[in-house]
């Protein structure tokens, strides 16, 4: 009996697209069934047509570029600040005592709760948009860096003290490498937070360009296909970014923790 040979890679791709295909099939069936609530829902084909139109217009790619840039700047600032703040609280019990209660209280306020205040203070500018994106990334990165630094095994610290390693060298040679897995977890979570807050930033703090703006515009014109195209764009781009960052972080860790088997 001859067995059909499917490579592992093909299997993985098939596995990954199976659910979207089933989902689209149900979507189509829902429309074909003529359900009353599907009255305004465009068919998958209509959304695909919308994508074709979008790709032919320069606005779409510009919207994507603006959104990506916004997220990258916010995420970068949030990562840097979160890493430094987490490191500080992790290293110093005094800093933790001073800052932790405030930090944890502020953290309880959902990002959307800040929007009215931020708009009143800064107006509808780029600054508040980038600010809330960086704050969203800041929380998980701070928390994970902090716990990574706090949980450096005592044995490693003892080893460093035997060899007279302290101060900056201790941070560089022991604390950061030992905390790295936790820090990278924080970075991945921070990216996801940044990306999800991007929509809040773009829809509530109105702006001329961005994928959020496109979704908002679709709503204003009652163009559901445009809204759906925007949502799909956000999902696909977010997923691509997560995979990319995950790959980079894995490579960084592999370089430092586990070498590829020779």
């Amino acid at each position, binding site marked *: 009996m001859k067995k059909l040979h499917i490579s592992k890679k093909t299997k993985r791709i098939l596995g990954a697209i199976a659910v979207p295909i089933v989902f689209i099939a149900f979507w189509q069936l829902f429309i074909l069934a003529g359900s009353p609530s599907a009255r305004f829902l465009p068919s998958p084909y209509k959304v695909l047509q919308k994508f074709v139109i979008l790709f032919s217009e320069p606005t779409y790619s510009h919207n994507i570029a603006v959104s990506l840039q916004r997220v990258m700047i916010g995420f970068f600032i949030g990562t840097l600040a979160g890493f430094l703040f987490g490191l500080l609280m992790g290293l110093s019990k005094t800093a933790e005592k001073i800052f932790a209660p405030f930090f944890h209280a502020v953290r309880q306020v959902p990002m959307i709760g800040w929007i009215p205040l931020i708009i009143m203070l800064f107006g509808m500018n780029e600054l508040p948009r980038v600010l809330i994106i960086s704050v969203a990334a800041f929380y998980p990165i701070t928390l994970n860096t902090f716990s990574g630094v706090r949980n450096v095994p005592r*044995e*490693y610290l*003892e*080893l460093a*003290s*035997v*060899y*007279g*390693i302290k101060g900056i*060298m201790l941070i560089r*040679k*022991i604390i950061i*490498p*030992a905390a*790295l897995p936790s820090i990278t977890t924080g970075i991945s979570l921070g990216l996801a937070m940044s990306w999800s807050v991007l929509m809040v930033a773009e829809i509530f703090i109105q702006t001329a360009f961005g994928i959020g703006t496109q979704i908002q515009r679709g709503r204003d014109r009652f163009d559901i296909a445009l809204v759906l195209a925007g949502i799909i764009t956000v999902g696909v781009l977010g997923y691509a970014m997560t995979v990319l960052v995950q790959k980079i972080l894995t490579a960084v860790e592999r370089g*430092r*923790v*586990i*070498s590829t088997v020779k």
Partner: protein
Amino acid sequence: MSDNKGTLEIRNLSKSFIVDNNPLQILNNISLSVSSGAFVTIVGSSGCGKTTLLRIMLGLENHYTGEALIDGKQIIGPGTDRGIVFQDHRLLPWLTVGENVAFGLDKLKQKEKKFLVDEHLKLVGLNGFESAYPYQLSGGMAQRVAIARALANKPEILLLDEPLGALDALTRMYMQQELERLWLLEKITMIMVTHDIDEAIYLSDKVVIMSSRPGVIKKIIDVQLSRPRDRASSDFMRIKAEILQEFHLGTEYPFAYAI
């Protein structure tokens, strides 16, 4: 070292920990003198304070009464004159074998560093492994890297805290031979904590027997057998019986050993 470096002198040392607001005495009036280039083992059941004593020698425990001197000088904190091998190899998982051995050599130039790393990996029989990572090594290999790391700093005294405790019996005996070879080669003082009496007799010039609560030195036994030692010889057995007697584990008919 022939120039009388690497001597250790402990005089009337006592140490207590505070447990639930009550002082708990760990070490009571310990006096011990280790001459340059000697191999001394400290044996005792768990909780006798032998590891604490070793940590005092290392400089990680600083609150005690009495004196602890190295080459006549009070021990203040850890220093490069002492190396340590812990029971867990304590290699840093994100560094290669070579980088781990070079861990304490930051102040040296790249070339000197490489020379010392190569020299010491060769010494422990692991040349060619410098770019491997700790997770790729067996327990015995990892412990040999840890020994290379400790020796690369050229200590006068090597402290060993149950270094072979986590190894299987055969690897352990092999590593005991290796330790003896390194000790003969490097001619430095070695002080080892162990709970393995055979290991102590096989390696040491002096076996220090401690008993617990509070930790005191019960007896110091000189082992004057020629090297390499035969673990099955009657002299070896006689010394073993003598030590076991101290732990009240000796046989009731000690003459059975005196064939």
